[in-house]
């Protein structure tokens, strides 16, 4: 009995010593003792896959094709992603001129969405007030546009949209990260940020002016 207890205690101590505690750090992937169909040979996004020559399970669009997508509704009209329409390109149809104003009606919903998307995608570099003083400036982002400058204030909505979509100088394209309607929402919100710096007392509704004068 003594030997039996000794062996049992040693076994327990050995297992605990080798296996350690719950939650302890491991560099090795979890061991799956029973396969249980946990890992299936199906395609999963962004995983390696030997079936294709380039080894990617997520396929890229073949050149010259457009993803099948639901149309955008712009003022009651359906616009598809492949169409040469202002909402897709920022340009007047058939020309290279930028549209002056946002094709979407500027509503409170659009502004709120724009604010959220601006804060996610633009704020790290352009800063909360669009003056180019984002946190990345401290880390070596040398050239960030101050969007409060006159050339950006007078820039057409279409060109701002075009810049977000295609990038400019050192700024990369955000087309993959921000959807078309969200880009227009950001344009609308940027206009509000610019106005917040430029507005005079006369721009404030009459009944609010007295409050500000105090």
């Amino acid at each position, binding site marked *: 009995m003594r030997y039996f207890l000794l062996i*049992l205690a040693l076994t327990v101590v050995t297992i605990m010593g080798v296996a350690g505690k719950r*939650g302890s750090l491991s560099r090795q992937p979890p061991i799956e003792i029973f396969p249980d169909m946990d890992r299936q040979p199906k395609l999963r996004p962004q995983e390696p896959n030997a079936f294709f020559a380039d080894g990617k399970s997520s396929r890229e669009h073949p050149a010259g094709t457009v993803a099948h997508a639901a149309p955008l509704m712009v003022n009651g009209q359906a616009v598809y992603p492949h169409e040469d329409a202002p909402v897709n390109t920022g340009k007047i149809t058939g020309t290279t001129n930028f549209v002056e104003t946002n094709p979407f009606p500027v509503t409170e919903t659009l502004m709120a969405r724009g604010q959220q998307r601006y804060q996610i995608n633009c704020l790290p570099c352009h800063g909360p007030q669009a003056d180019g003083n984002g946190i990345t400036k401290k880390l070596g982002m040398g050239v960030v546009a101050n969007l409060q400058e006159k050339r950006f204030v007078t820039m057409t909505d279409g060109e701002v949209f075009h810049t977000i979509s295609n990038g400019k100088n050192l700024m990369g394209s955000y087309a993959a990260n921000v959807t078309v309607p969200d880009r227009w929402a950001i344009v609308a919100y940027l206009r509000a940020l610019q106005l917040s710096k430029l507005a005079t007392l006369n721009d404030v509704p009459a009944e609010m002016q007295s409050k500000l004068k105090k």
Partner: protein
Amino acid sequence: MSDIFPKWTNWLPLKIAVGAVLVGTAATAGSWYYLTPKYSNVGYQPVQPVAFSHAIHAGQLGMDCRYCHSAVEKSWYSNIPTASTCMNCHNQVLKDDPKLALVRESAATGKPIPWVQIHKVPDYVYFNHSVHVNRGVSCVECHGRIDKMDEVRQVEPLSMTFCLDCHRHPEKHLRPPDKITDLGWQVDPKTQKQNGEKFKHDWKVQSSQNCSACHR
């Protein structure tokens, strides 16, 4: 007769019984403690091909999770960003740092960076990120304080119990939509019950416990 069964054998049945109980207890306790994702999966921290620090990007710089994981609100999976997303800043910041060589190569050639996936559920579990983050379930509920991790590790078991605990009482976890990616935001125990019930009602949260909700 005593020559056939010596006296010590009188104790044998009791000793065997005690021994069996001890072995059984040890085996049960061991299985309970070790044969669970709480042991096998929690703490998994693989070495990644690029020494990307969430603590710097999401924590120190305060970048929103969705700057990189841009499709998480629209897609069932939370995407790994394109290398060009990294290059939006790293074409100027740490421009020639050897640690970012793989990122630059990927951005230039399209060759994927072989990131190691950490949080895995079985392939027959159809977890949908978008439905959770759009209805008040924060990233932190499953991924923990990513914004404090230099190297990401798994902190929750992501077992079926783990899912069901929340699906049975979603009101304990739901939070305002603008706090989803605010990983440091804490539930206020005084108002949470009321708020949680309200979110559950307003967003029509049907945290189904049917098998087919997750398994197909």
